[in-house]
C-alpha cells in the first residue's frame, strides 16, 4: 500500500471534539502536486480534517508528511475585529522579519504588488482588511497564503462566484497556481461540477471516509447518495442523464 510518491499519509485518523467523534478512523494518502477535493454534507468533519492536517487540532492516529511541507491556509469564514487597523499591505508585511515590517524595502513592496496582481486585487493594497468585502478578503487571503511560497495550499470552500478579472474563477486561478508553483492543493467544496473538472482526487467524508479516488470513479450517483442522502439530487440534476428514482436510503442531513 505504501506509495513511493506519497506526500501525505494519514492512518486511522480520529478527532474528538467535546467528547464527540467528529472524524473516525480515516486513512488515505496523497501524492505531491495533486489537487484534492474534500466533499461531504455540512457538519461532516471536512474543516476538522483540514485543521488536523494543519496541526491545529489534537488527534489520534497518524498524519505523516513525507517531506517538510510549508502550509498556506485560506479559512472559510474569518472572524476578526473589523476595527483592527491592519491594512492589506501590512497583512503581507507581518510575514516578513521584524525590520521588514516596520521599514519595508522597495523590493518587498514590488513582491506584494505582484502577489496581489495574481488574484486581481492590486487596487486593494492600502485598504484596511476590516473594510474588505467577502470576495475581496478571499482574494487577499489567497495572495497572502501564497506569499511565502508554500508547498501545500489548504482552501476551505472557495467562493465559486468570485470573478477574478473577466471569466477567471477562483478555481481556474487555483489550477493555474498549482501548476505554476507545483503546489499540492486541498480544497473543500460543495460544487461538484467544479470538483469533477479541476481535481485529481476526491475524498468523501461523513465522519468516516466513504470514498477516495479519481473524480470519475468516485462521483457516481450511488456514492453520492450514500454520502449526501437526498442532496445527491443536486449533482444528478446537472450531470447524470437518467438514473431516475431518487434514493430514499441514506440518512438525510
Amino acid at each position, binding site marked *: 500500500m505504501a506509495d513511493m510518491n506519497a506526500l501525505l499519509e494519514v492512518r486511522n485518523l480520529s478527532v474528538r471534539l467535546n467528547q464527540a467523534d467528529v472524524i473516525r478512523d480515516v486513512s488515505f494518502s496523497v501524492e505531491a502536486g495533486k489537487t484534492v477535493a474534500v466533499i461531504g454534507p455540512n457538519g461532516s468533519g471536512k474543516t476538522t480534517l483540514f485543521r488536523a492536517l494543519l496541526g491545529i487540532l489534537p488527534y489520534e492516529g497518524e498524519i505523516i508528511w513525507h517531506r517538510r511541507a510549508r502550509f498556506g491556509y485560506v479559512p472559510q469564514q474569518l472572524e476578526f*475585529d473589523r476595527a*483592527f*487597523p*491592519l491594512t492589506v499591505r*501590512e497583512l503581507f508585511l*507581518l510575514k516578513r522579519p521584524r525590520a521588514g515590517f516596520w521599514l519595508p524595502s522597495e523590493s518587498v513592496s514590488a513582491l506584494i504588488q505582484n502577489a496581489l496582481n495574481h488574484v486581481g486585487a492590486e487596487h486593494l493594497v492600502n485598504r484596511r482588511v476590516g473594510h474588505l468585502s467577502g470576495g475581496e478578503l478571499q482574494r487577499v487571503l489567497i495572495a497572502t497564503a501564497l506569499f511565502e511560497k508554500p508547498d501545500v495550499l489548504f482552501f476551505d470552500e472557495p467562493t465559486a462566484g468570485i470573478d477574478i478579472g473577466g471569466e477567471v474563477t477562483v478555481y481556474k486561478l487555483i489550477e493555474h497556481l498549482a501548476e505554476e508553483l507545483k503546489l499540492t492543493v486541498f480544497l473543500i467544496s460543495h460544487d461538484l461540477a467544479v470538483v469533477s473538472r479541476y481535481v485529481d482526487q476526491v475524498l468523501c467524508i461523513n465522519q468516516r471516509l466513504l470514498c477516495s479516488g479519481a473524480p470519475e470513479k468516485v462521483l457516481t450517483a450511488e456514492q453520492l447518495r450514500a454520502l449526501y442522502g437526498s442532496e445527491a439530487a443536486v449533482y444528478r440534476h446537472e450531470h447524470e442523464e437518467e438514473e431516475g428514482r431518487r434514493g430514499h436510503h441514506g440518512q438525510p442531513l
Partner: protein
Amino acid sequence: MIALAAGLLGIFVVSRRMSLVADALSHVSLPGVSLALRFGFDPFFGALGVLIFAVLGIEGIQRRRPALRDTLVGVTFTAALAVGILIGTDEGLLESLFGSIEKMDRATALSAILGGLLILGLTAVNFQRFAKITFSSEIAASEGISVKRSNLLFLLLLALSVAIGLKTIGVLLMGALIILPAATARNLSRTLRSMTVVTLMVAAADVLLGFRVAEQFNLLPGPTVVVIGALIFLVSLLARPVEQHFHHAGH
C-alpha cells in the same frame, strides 16, 4: 517608560476586545497586596504572585469554555477586589489602589523602569506574532505559531505591567493606562504601524501632561494622568469622522 510599555500592550488588549480582562487583572492584584501587607513583604511580589495565578486561570478557562470568559472574569475579579479589601489594612491598600509615586524611592523607581523595559522589549520582539494571532489565530497556528504559548506570554506581560503599576499610578488606574492610549490611537490611525506610533506618543503625552497638571494644581498624579488620558480619548473620538471623511474623498 511604564506608560509606553502599558500602551504598547494596550494595542492588542484593545484589538482583541480584552479591555475587561485588563481591568479585571488590576482588581485581582489586591488580595495579593493585602496578603503581602499583612505578612510584611513587598506588595509588588504579592500582587505578581496572585496575578500569575489569575492569568493561568484565565488561560485555562479560555481553552475549555471560551464563551464563559467574560462572565467568569467579571465575577471572580470583583470578588477578588472584595476579598482584598476585607483582609487588607487600609493605609497600605489605599496606596496600592491609587499609587504613591511621590513616595517612591530610588530602588523602586529603578526596578519599575527595568520592568517597563522588559515588557517593552518582549512586546516588540513578539509584535508580529501577537498581531497575526489578533487577526486570525487559525491562520497563525497553520503557520506553526504556538498560539497557546503566545497568549500566555501576552497575559503574563499584562500581569507584570499591572504589578508595576501598583507602585506608580496604582492598580485601579493601571487598567486605564493600558487601554486609553491604544483606544485613542485607533481613532486616529489608518494602519497598524501608525496606530503603534501614535499609541506610544499618546501614552507619553498622557503621563507628561498629567504630571504637569497634577503639580500645577496640587492633585494626585495617578488619577490626573487618567483623567487627562480620558480627555484626549474624547478629543480623538471627535477627530475620527473627519478622518473617515477624508478617506472617502481620497478614493
